[in-house]
């Protein structure tokens, strides 16, 4: 029996917007194995990001259960969710979200500052992460001194520096050019293949889906269709 690192069952999430009720999730189910590279596709506003937020412990579902890296997220307090995110999940956002006043290395180091470790070991882990995204030579640069593609690679380094089991990426190639997009996709694919990271990517980019082990289609609040991509890996 395959061990699933992500197990979400019958997730329901409802928002109220004035008099309208929006149901981004209405019974979504998802199971992802360790080391899997999964992309989630679907129309805008279909609830893909909401799903990602719930998997990452950034938001709560109204009903259903969500277990990630062995932790049942349902009903966890804000403080427990913070601990969970720090230890188990790395986020990559569409707009990079680097801290503008910190250098690339300091941005990558930020999540490590929540853990007790020596400054030397922190530095070592930061350099390893930067080398993994081929940006060790840009360690001292501020985000404003980097291209969009480089910023996103720094964001990936920040996401993996704590050695999380799961990496969740929301449109990671949405704001970068084609060449950078290919680099970012390659890095994320390598993380799954070589480091057994579980990578879940919400994307509209067909180049990213080509690398996926599985492509999930999101419609009407459910992951209603699973498609195996023949050329994956």
């Amino acid at each position, binding site marked *: 029996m395959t061990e699933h690192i992500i197990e979400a069952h019958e997730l329901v999430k409802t928002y109220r917007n004035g008099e309208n009720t929006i149901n981004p999730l209405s019974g979504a189910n998802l199971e992802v194995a360790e080391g899997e590279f999964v992309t989630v596709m679907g129309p805008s506003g279909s609830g893909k990001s909401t799903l990602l*937020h719930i998997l*990452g412990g*950034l*938001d709560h579902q109204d009903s259903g259960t969500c277990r990630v890296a062995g932790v049942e997220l349902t009903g966890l307090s*804000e*403080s427990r969710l*913070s*601990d*969970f*995110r*720090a*230890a188990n999940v790395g*986020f990559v*956002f569409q707009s990079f*979200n680097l*801290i*503008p*006043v*910190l250098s690339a290395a*300091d941005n990558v180091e*930020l*999540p490590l*500052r*929540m853990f007790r470790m020596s400054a030397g070991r922190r530095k070592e882990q930061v350099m390893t992460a930067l080398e993994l995204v081929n940006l060790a030579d840009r360690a001292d640069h501020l985000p404003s001194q980097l291209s969009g593609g480089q910023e996103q690679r720094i964001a990936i380094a*920040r996401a993996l520096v704590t050695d999380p089991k799961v990496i969740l990426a929301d449109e990671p190639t949405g704001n970068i050019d084609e060449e950078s997009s290919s680099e970012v996709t390659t890095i994320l694919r390598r993380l799954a293949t070589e480091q057994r990271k579980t990578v879940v990517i919400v994307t509209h980019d067909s180049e990213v889906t080509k690398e996926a082990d599985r492509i999930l289609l999101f419609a009407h609040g459910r992951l209603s269709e699973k498609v195996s991509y023949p050329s994956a890996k």
Partner: protein
Amino acid sequence: MFMRMLPYLWHSAWRSKRRSIITILGVAVGIFVFLALQSAILAVKAPARKAGSVQLLNVRESARSSVMASRLPQGYETKIGMVNGVEISTGVLSDLAVIGEKGVHVFVRGIDPDKYLSARAITVDPQQWTEFRNGKNTAIVGWRLMEGMGWNVGDNIEIRGLNLRTRIVGFIPPQDIDIEDHMLVHRDYLQRTRTAEEQVSYILARVSQSNDPLSVAEAIDAQMKVSPIPTKTVSAAAYAQAIIKDFMGFIDYLGVIGWIVIAVVALGIANAVGISVRERTREIGVLKAIGIPPCIVMSLVVSESVLLAVIGGLLGMAGAWGVITSAGSMAGLQLDVTTMAIGVFLALICGVLGATPAVLPIVRIPVTEALRTID
């Protein structure tokens, strides 16, 4: 964890250098003004604080509400000296003079040198005091007044308002007493120039250690009740308090202005921190998303505000100390360590209070909402 986040705190505090510098300068000016006002209040209250031993009584005319207007016959000096428990009694004629182009207000006290020295136990150069005692139109001047007016021992000075021409033969060195900015002249000389022969403003009575000053004060007033001019006897400190009572409204006004300035400082910080936090709502969302607990994010914002406020407070304190010790000492202004520490502490409080309105939304805003914010 907070300590490990200090590099972020430091970089973050300077992300908008102009705004941070303006905030710091605003706090510095506020604390400077607050301390300057406090120093003025301290200066006005100083006489009461420095009036001396509790064994020293001040006997004045009971019918006068203003201490400065009190007049007693000089002969009361002897009568009061005979009251049980009084060791020494000496009449003092006190007047207020305005001196120099800057209009410095100075108390001139006409005294009997020997008796006054015994009653007040002032430390002064014996040679200078002897010269003062022997010269009828000589003066001993408090060091602060000497410094402020640029006078020297040996100078001949004229105080036109009191028709006083006198030669300075000595000075009262620093010893934390109320006459450090006063001028002492011979009583009979001042009586002549003020046409107040045989009159004094008050009588200073030293009570022996074995007697209760309050009981002696009551005994003096009881004895003088039947005399033509009844007296009111209080401790020297209470007498000084009565003098500053005339200025209390002004002191209270200064105090209120000081607190208004502090409130304005807190509002200024609140505005600056509020703008800063609104501008980086998304960044705060990112910090929370990567696992930094909300309480740490909150304390980072508060600490950033406190950092700027304390830097401003220290600058304001340094400025106030510099100005008051150099230019303000002439006007009797003074700034003690406690008051300066209070100034910096208030800056710190302003930093905390100023950050509070900005911090509460940080706690409440969901991470997903913060991340959706457009920079």
